[in-house]
């Protein structure tokens, strides 16, 4: 019994370990190319396969860049600052990688060769998948603290504290927006959530689903320190946040951890709101599910890169204010609206009432967003200027 259990487990986990790190390598390349193109430059295109020993190079659009970075990271000298807790300095990048990797297996990735009959692997689809997801991403905060504390450097401690404050205060809107979907589906299991969104009735098309998706996406950005919230590594203020003292492969691990966390959390966003694996032509070809799932994840990653190319950074207090004063009340209100809408839809099924409910919830949510926005943004508005002769 133990032999085929191991076989099943390997069948489920090894593809994860292959797909996502390669996607990580590709994403670094896509990110640099996309950012370059946004800024009207070409991006990395020099690393290539040397054709002949004398010269000539197949540059293959710089696809060699991730490999080059990887090799560089491997051979970079690994500096540990004196006076640093050697053990925790070494443990921090590993602890930052484990949760992101572990969380990947809760996503409803139905690989074609797994087609459902291995019940032992089904154990992965355990009951409290969503809650497990948030529990384990919570460990990431620990890794950040450990890195900040262990490198005994004023800047990295400051960066670590900022990162923790940001992660903790954005985890609550994140969880509350996930609660909305769990409440509607009635189960924490990622598979049931995916089943509830078969065909085209994804949750994002519901008003409360859209609001929850926006809050979840903003929370996800903050959780993985991306774009408008990349405060910990704000180079213009304190140098590079908690991974200042890391070089060589440990820095690569942090980098890998951050990207895999990005994949994991956008995977969850796709599962909760964008109907994991649901898409045209899924009934006929079953392996299309995994294809649709990955394209949606890539679209979300694309939006993250797009945001990174456009938006400046928020200040610490604005960041906190935004989480506690805007996202949190909005997500709580969203839960009420979702409950209200779902309850009425259950009561009577005709389309008329559901349309009315649909519009009513949109109005309420929009009014709430605008109201909260007005409260917070009383003093900030574009000004007019006068011209002297």
């Amino acid at each position, binding site marked *: 019994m133990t032999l085929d259990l191991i076989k099943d487990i390997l069948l489920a986990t090894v593809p994860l370990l292959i797909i996502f790190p390669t996607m990580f390598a590709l994403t670094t390349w896509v990110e640099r190319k*996309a950012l370059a*193109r*946004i*800024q*009207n*430059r*070409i991006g990395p295109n020099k690393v290539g396969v040397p054709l002949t020993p004398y*010269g000539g190079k197949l540059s293959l659009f710089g696809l060699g860049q991730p490999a080059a970075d990887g090799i560089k990271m491997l051979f970079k000298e690994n500096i540990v600052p004196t006076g640093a807790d050697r053990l925790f300095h070494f443990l921090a990048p590993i602890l930052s990688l484990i949760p992101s990797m572990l969380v990947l297996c809760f996503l409803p990735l139905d690989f074609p060769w797994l087609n459902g009959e291995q019940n032992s692997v089904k154990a992965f689809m355990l009951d409290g998948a969503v809650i497990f997801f948030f529990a384990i991403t919570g460990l990431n905060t620990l890794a950040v603290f450990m890195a900040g504390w262990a490198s005994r450097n004023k800047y990295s401690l400051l960066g670590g504290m900022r990162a923790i404050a940001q992660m903790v205060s954005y985890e609550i809107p994140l969880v509350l927006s996930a609660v909305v979907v769990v409440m509607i589906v009635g189960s924490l299991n990622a598979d049931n959530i995916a089943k509830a969104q078969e065909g085209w009735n994804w949750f994002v098309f519901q008003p409360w689903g859209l609001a929850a998706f*926006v809050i979840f996406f*903003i929370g996800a950005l903050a959780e993985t320190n991306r774009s*408008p919230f990349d405060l910990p590594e704000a180079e213009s203020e304190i140098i590079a946040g908690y991974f200042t003292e890391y070089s060589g492969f440990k820095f690569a691990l942090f980098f890998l951890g951050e990207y895999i966390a990005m994949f994991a959390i956008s995977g969850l966003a796709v599962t909760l709101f964008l109907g994991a694996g649901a898409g045209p032509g899924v009934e006929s070809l079953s392996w299309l599910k995994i294809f649709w799932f990955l394209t949606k994840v890539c679209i979300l990653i694309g939006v993250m890169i*797009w*945001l990174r*190319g*456009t*938006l400046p950074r*928020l200040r610490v*207090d*604005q960041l906190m*204010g*935004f989480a506690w004063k*805007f996202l949190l009340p909005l997500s709580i209100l969203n839960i009420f609206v979702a409950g209200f809408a779902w309850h009425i839809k259950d009561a009577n099924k005709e389309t008329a009432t559901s349309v009315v409910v649909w519009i009513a919830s949109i109005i309420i949510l929009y009014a709430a*967003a605008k109201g*909260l*926005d007005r409260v*917070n*943004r009383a003093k*900030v508005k574009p000004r007019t200027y006068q011209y002297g002769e």
Partner: protein
Amino acid sequence: MSVLGSGIFKGMAVTLKNFVGSYFDKERLTTNEYAWQANDKLPERAGDYPKEEAEQLSDTTTVTQYSRNFPMLLHDAGEPMDTVRCVACQICERECPPQCIYIEKSTEKKERSGNKAQFYPATFDIDVSVCMSCQICVEVCPFDAIVMNSQFELSTPSRFGELLLRRDDLLKSNDYYYKIHPEEASARDKRIADEKAAKEAKKKAAEAAKKKAAEAKSKSEAEAKAKEEAEAASKPTEPSDTPPAESTATPSTEPPATPTTEPEKEGSAE
């Protein structure tokens, strides 16, 4: 301090337009690939770089016909040392703000094509690491002997002696000058031609004037003699001094060696 709002989406629309535009719109994607590669080891001395071929100047995307870099000495067609224009008057050495030119005048003069025998620079060094390519030497040179080259790949493994360009490295032919700066070269040669023509015309006019003056003088002397005999007969004491013939100093192209006068060449006419 809310974050969501229309301004952000407008900004994202702009970056999307740029992202798409960078593939099609030529005006957006202005970066071009820098092609020139030193395929073998870097030359030891800055002077060892290939002299005449223009292609080692790298493709014209980075070096246009207007860009100027380190100076070079011009010589007309033929053997460099025979037709070098520079006469080692050392004006550029004095005027150069960072003092990066070093000239040693030759002892004896040398016959140059056309005009009189002139000195020539025995050594003419420019320290490329000091020169800031400000083109003042080109302005102050009365003989159009020094102009700006546009070759900037002169890197060498070490930065002391090797970055010193000697006279032979600096000497470049005039048609090389035409090749890298066609507009400026033709304008400069036209100006030299005009000045030469103006000088001839003036010389001719001067000779004509001298001849006329000579005849006038001879005629006036003849009359004066005639008058004298007449007056001698009447008033022997009145002194008569004919105005000394005014010597029109032909503007010799060779300025007196005294360093104070710096004839300033006007900028080349447009």
